[in-house]
């Protein structure tokens, strides 16, 4: 929250109302308690209130469920990360209370279920404790049976009161969620909500009201990264996909499986990941860019077939929702350790494109861009998302669908002649002619994995292999030439440059803001195009004393991470050093600053 809030005093009385610009609320319970629903409601409310919002959640790795949290950060200004510290902690159980009170900022409010939580005396002075018999009051309100369902909604009511949230909007959201065949379900939900809302918060010394946020041009949509990815692919015109389930990729495929038929498309659940990429290679070969995806282990399995698409020059989009590795690793935690695999993971010289979205909204637009790069250059394109983006909810300005949605149906008009691997084009790019098209010369193309001549027929010719290898490389070099040089966040020159990619953009920018607020010279560079790299990075680097690449992967044998390695190899700039971690959690702003402290200190005073 903003500083306007004073550390609550112990005495009771009518709560004072203070205006705030943002709040971080952490809800801690078990995955079964529907705490994600509470967070979801708060996030969507924020979206409808034109506020910025970002959420963060943990999922128990065992199927039978277990402790889980959902953190939502709502702000009237820009919200870059889910927040390091919570202003309010809602604790359903003793373990929730004990494990998460540390995440509450000093003087913050802990709202706990007195039916399950025994507060610790030694903590009372530090945090403002508000006990509510949430379980029993819920039972009172809606009867025992629905208890487990109702408790979260009751708590939502408490929060709504505390933050003076827009109840009509919340009721509408509850209605949309629970309004179904059985009306009693909705009644129960609303009853629980009102019971919570109307429950006196007792000795809470104040409640809060968000300052109005500056008008957004256009309404916001609220969704998580996997949803944004799936709908982005649909907007891009993708109508065929195939995959095999794996966490956290699965919901992208589940959405596409459910939605594509509405557009006359199909998504196939295959017997394994190799079959999946093979089916999409086949569908792409047949005319229209298709999509496959997976996470860690499934991506490793696709590497041989991906190389075929590189060799045959068939467009393809492969989504990798990264999780903790190696091997089965940490299936429900986040990591950025598949970059090397994406860039180097097939045998032979097999150049492919690698993009990484920076957040939920960017998933939508990256999906469209990936499809268009694949189509233009006839090359497979990787999209590196990750578990954090996949599962977090954000509100963003609704895309202008009429403009962004595209039709990528191939043109089947007969052609006079066609050389699929024509070597005469300077950038190596040859528009595709696909099956179903008459070729009047009577000479038809073969797409194959063997090195080939311009017509696609096998050759062992040394010259042709050199030329075709160069052709495949030149396409990416041509793409690179078209890429915009990324813009520096903060001044374009200074002491420390924090470089990042993917989901770390938010915390890195917040770290910059925080450091600059403290008078330190820190800027950030976000790299969205990882392979090929955009031009001009060396000029940006030259403007700083220290270049630190912040990644959620290991520091490696020689002390730098995966993007760090790519940049050092290309620019041979030994000032490029890593800030790495592999704890399966997103970066906390203070962790980043912690790691960069020495470099930052070195720059104190200077420019």
């Amino acid at each position: 929250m903003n500083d306007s809030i004073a550390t609550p005093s112990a005495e009771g009385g009518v709560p004072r109302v203070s205006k705030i610009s943002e709040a971080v609320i952490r809800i801690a319970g078990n995955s079964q308690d529907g705490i994600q629903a509470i967070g979801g409601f708060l996030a969507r409310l924020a979206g409808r209130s034109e506020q910025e919002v970002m959420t963060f959640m943990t999922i128990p790795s065992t199927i039978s469920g277990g402790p889980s949290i959902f953190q939502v950060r709502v702000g009237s200004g820009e919200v870059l990360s889910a927040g390091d510290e919570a202003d309010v902690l809602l604790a359903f159980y003793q373990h929730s209370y004990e494990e998460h009170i540390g995440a509450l900022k000093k003087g913050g409010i802990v709202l706990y279920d007195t039916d399950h939580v025994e507060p610790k005396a030694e903590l009372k002075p530090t945090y403002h404790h508000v006990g509510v018999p949430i379980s029993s009051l819920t039972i009172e309100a809606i009867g025992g049976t629905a208890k487990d369902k109702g408790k979260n909604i009751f708590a939502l009511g408490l929060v709504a009161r505390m933050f003076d949230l827009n109840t009509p909007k919340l009721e509408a959201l509850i209605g949309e969620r629970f309004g179904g065949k059985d009306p009693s379900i909705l009644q129960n939900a609303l009853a629980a909500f009102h019971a919570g809302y109307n429950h006196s918060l007792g000795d809470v010394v104040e409640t809060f009201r968000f300052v109005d946020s500056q008008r957004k041009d256009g309404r916001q949509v609220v969704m998580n990264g996997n949803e944004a990815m799936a709908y982005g692919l649909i907007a891009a015109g993708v109508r065929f996909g195939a995959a095999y389930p794996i966490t956290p990729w699965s919901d992208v495929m589940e959405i596409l499986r459910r939605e594509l038929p509405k557009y006359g498309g199909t998504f196939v659940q295959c017997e394994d990941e190799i079959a999946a990429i093979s089916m999409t290679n086949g569908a792409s070969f047949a005319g229209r860019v298709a999509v496959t995806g997976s996470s860690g282990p499934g991506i490793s399995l696709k590497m041989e077939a991906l190389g075929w698409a590189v060799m045959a020059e068939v467009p393809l989009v492969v989504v990798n929702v990264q999780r903790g590795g190696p091997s089965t690793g940490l299936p429900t935690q986040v990591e950025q350790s598949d970059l090397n695999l994406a860039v180097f993971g097939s045998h032979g010289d097999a150049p492919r494109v690698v993009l990484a979205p920076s957040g939920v909204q960017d998933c939508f637009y990256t999906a469209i861009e990936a499809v268009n790069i694949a189509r233009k250059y006839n090359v497979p394109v990787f999209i590196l998302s990750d578990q954090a983006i996949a599962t977090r909810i954000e509100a963003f300005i609704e895309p202008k669908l009429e403009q962004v949605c595209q039709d990528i149906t191939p043109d089947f008009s007969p052609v006079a002649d066609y050389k699929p691997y024509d070597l005469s084009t300077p950038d190596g790019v040859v528009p595709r002619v696909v099956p179903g098209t008459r070729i009047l010369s009577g000479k038809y193309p073969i797409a194959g994995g063997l090195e080939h001549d311009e017509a696609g027929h096998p050759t062992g010719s040394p010259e042709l292999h050199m030329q075709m290898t160069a052709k495949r490389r030149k396409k990416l070099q041509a793409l690179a030439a078209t890429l915009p040089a990324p813009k520096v966040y903060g001044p374009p020159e200074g002491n420390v440059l924090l470089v990042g990619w993917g989901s770390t953009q938010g915390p890195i920018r917040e770290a910059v803001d925080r450091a600059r607020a403290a008078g330190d010279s820190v800027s950030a560079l976000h790299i969205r195009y990882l392979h090929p790299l955009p031009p001009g990075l060396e000029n940006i680097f030259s403007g700083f004393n220290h270049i630190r690449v912040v990644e959620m992967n290991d520091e490696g044998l020689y002390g730098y991470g995966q993007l760090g390695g790519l940049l050092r190899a290309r620019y041979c700039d030994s000032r490029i050093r890593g800030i790495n971690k592999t704890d399966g959690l997103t970066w906390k702003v203070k962790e980043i600053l912690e790691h960069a402290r020495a470099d930052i200190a070195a720059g104190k005073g200077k420019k």
Partner: protein
Amino acid sequence: MTASPTATTPAPAAPAAPAAPAAPPSATDRKPLSKKEIAADHPTWCPGCGDFSVLALYFKMIEKRKLWQEKFTTISGIGCSSRFPYFVQAYGAHYIHGRSLAFASGISLSRPDLHVFVFGGDGDLFSIGGNHFTHTARKNIKLTCVAMDNWVYGLTKKQTSPTSPLGYKSKTDIWGAVDYPINPMKQAIAAGASFVARTTSSNPNHVLQMMEAAMDHDGFSFIECLSECVEFYEGAFDGANPRKGGVFNTVPAEHDVTDEAAAYKLADAAFPGYFGVFYRKPKATKNAKEAALQQQATAKFKGLKDWQILQKTFDAMK
């Protein structure tokens, strides 16, 4: 590119056929493809290889059935037999080893207007490719798969294949194969293939018959075609070749091709076994089932553009 009067671009979301081109000029005003038009590179197979006759009969079928190049694709994995597409002057793909059926399924499910023919070897389809075979068959994806079974790995020069009989001396079993061979016919039947037939390249008329029957089957159609590797397994199929003192037994007239158990029993017969259609029982294809799902789904959005359908979804996410 020269435009043709008949060419049109289909509606973006034509249900069930996201990318189906318009129908070709009516059959009447076009001659069937001649052998000359449909033949591409001269096959790199060894002189005498059984695969030559399979290719020749494929050409015959294309000519006889008036398949023009924009109406079909020829797909394969890797192997001597899998060189097939390079020898056909039409759209084709020489995919990776063992995965041709999954690749072909992607074509079949996204392009209902195309006939999809898959050719592969015993190693390609039943060793590394075995699982894709099983699942393509069980899902009854519409395409024709011809296994050119020579009981050996030809391209890699004589290793044991999953169909090599016990005792066959290969480079990986110099003392003779010890692993029990797989029975492709049983595999197909057990997996749920809706058309299962067996032939041998030494009987051209029969090969053509089986190919045509397979092409006409609406579903996954499988043909095991014995095709001799003269280089590494000479004489393997003499026993099935009357001209070499063998016997060519066709499926008994009284056999009921819709009786799965009976088909399974036929498949159990010792070499040379039977030739002909073992099993044929049409059932809804995955292609048809997915098309039905599309019809249901699109019906709800009649007249809406794609972006308007997506808009409805977004409206519910606010």
